[in-house]
């Protein structure tokens, strides 16, 4: 077998391993889908009546406006599970065993990322299904849905590689809480629930320029309207850039001496 084929085989083995973890302790995945669904219900309940004042357009109901943000939130919650499981691997000693074996070194990490992709895409599908039950009326055709899936995959790749790097860098699971807090709070200060134009001062500037906003705007455009070209480019660049930064840091961290 070629080294490429071996790398794919090892990654598949590692993915099966992480998926087994997910299935054995399903509570984490239930929470990571349950919390976004709860947020969806909460925001529809609180802000649904105010949609006219939010500048979301006369024909768009609030659930149509808010759902893309909930999708991003689901991905963010998913990445906090990823960072914790990578950290558990690297602090519990099993990573030491993997590193003394003749396996593709990247397979340990790509197994986590592939699992995160599967886990999050299933979670997002569940969230969208619940939203449709609650009155979400997307206008996207098959091509648009494919684009939605593509953008979501890019976002999960970016968040997962960052999560892997943080999980490797942290000496204990407590060390990952900073990352978890950031990815869980950022969606609130974005275009997820309220258009940044309605915010004030520095919060408005932050919300307009943080990475989640173009991703949310792109998803919203694809699902219920037409995204602007600039937003799509910004979303893709943010995701690709963060994914690359996360991947390169993770690779460097995984090559360190075991003890350090």
């Amino acid at each position: 077998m070629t080294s490429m084929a071996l790398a794919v085989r090892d990654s598949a083995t590692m993915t099966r391993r992480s998926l087994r973890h997910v299935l054995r302790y399903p509570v984490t995945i239930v929470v990571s889908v349950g919390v976004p669904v709860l947020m969806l219900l909460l925001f529809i309940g609180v802000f649904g009546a105010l949609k006219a004042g939010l500048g979301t357009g006369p024909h768009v109901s609030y659930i149509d406006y808010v759902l893309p943000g909930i999708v991003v939130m689901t991905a963010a919650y998913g990445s906090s599970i990823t960072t914790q499981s990578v950290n558990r691997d690297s602090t519990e000693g099993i990573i030491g065993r993997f590193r003394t074996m003749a396996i593709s070194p990247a397979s340990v990490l790509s197994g986590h990322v592939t699992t995160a992709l599967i886990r999050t895409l299933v979670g997002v599908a569940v969230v969208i299904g619940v939203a449709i039950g609650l009155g979400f009326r997307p206008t996207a055709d098959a091509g648009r849905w494919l684009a939605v899936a593509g953008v979501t995959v890019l976002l999960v790749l970016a968040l997962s590689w960052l999560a892997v790097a943080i999980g490797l860098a942290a000496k204990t699971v407590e060390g990952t809480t900073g990352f978890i807090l950031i990815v869980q709070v950022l969606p609130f200060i974005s275009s997820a629930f309220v258009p940044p134009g309605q915010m004030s001062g520095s919060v408005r500037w932050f919300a307009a320029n943080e990475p989640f906003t173009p991703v949310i705007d792109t998803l919203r455009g694809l699902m219920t309207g037409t995204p602007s070209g600039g937003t799509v480019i910004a979303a893709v660049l943010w995701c690709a850039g963060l994914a690359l930064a996360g991947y390169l840091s993770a690779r460097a961290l995984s090559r360190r001496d075991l003890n350090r």
Partner: protein
Amino acid sequence: MTSAIMAAGVRKSFGGKVVLDGVDLEVGAGTTFSLLGPNGAGKTTMVQIMSTVVHADVGEVRIAGHDAARNPVAVRAAIGVTGQFSAVDNLLTGEENLLLMADLHHLGRAEGRRRAAALLGQFDLAEAAAKTVATYSGGMRRRLDLAMTLIGRPRIIFLDEPTSGLDPRSRRIMWQTVRELVADGVTIFLTTQQLDEADQLADQIAVLDHGKVVAAGTPDELKRSIPGAHVRLRFADTKGIEAAERSLGGSFRHDDSLTLEVPSDGGAIAVRTLLNRLGDTAADIAEVSVHTPDLDDVFFALTGHPTAETTPETENAR
């Protein structure tokens, strides 16, 4: 005979602290080598360098003929490692852990299942095979760890303090396994703090202290360099000790503790002979104890300082 493991001039510092200070060693294929030393001597770091997870600052390491720094993948294909900290997946069952290893060694499904079942039996884990490792005792975990190392049938195995903190049953299984592996031609490199473990298992021993090999040789050669075993007799009063010293001769007397040290191999027959020679004086003995050479004696003899002076923090850095 070809050497399975060769290290020359290996040096390693962590944050300015010298952990290994020029270590040379050579292990013949199919033999058992023991690196003996206290906590903090650098044993774990040496194993980590040889198993390619830590890079040496200076020096050359060749495992199965491959350079550990330049060709780590070839080294990894030849070795198996069981460390001090059990490297098992706590969220999987014992059997799933073994099958994971089988998959990573690219064994076929049937072959993987066959070897996993055999190892679960060999290591007394068959009953617990379907339980998650999180529920295992420390001894079960270490046995599973070794089984995971063996599933790929490595020709060179590193065991870092394989029996420290183990219950007697797990320790016996561990020793038995090492003997069987060597009988099959596998090379074993094991670190230990216990002289008797090295004595039981090793063909060659090197004593590591403060990152340097201070003595090397066969167990017999090493023991000859250590002060012999002795029987210690504690007396109730000075009258008894004086009488005993006269009838024995060649003993060493501690007046302050009223004890007499008599060179002896410490066996039952030797002790009986000794007490017979004392005759009636034996009635004055308050306590008889047998003292055999241990790592402290080795260290004191070889380095002139007791083991307690070495600091434990570097060895357990992780």
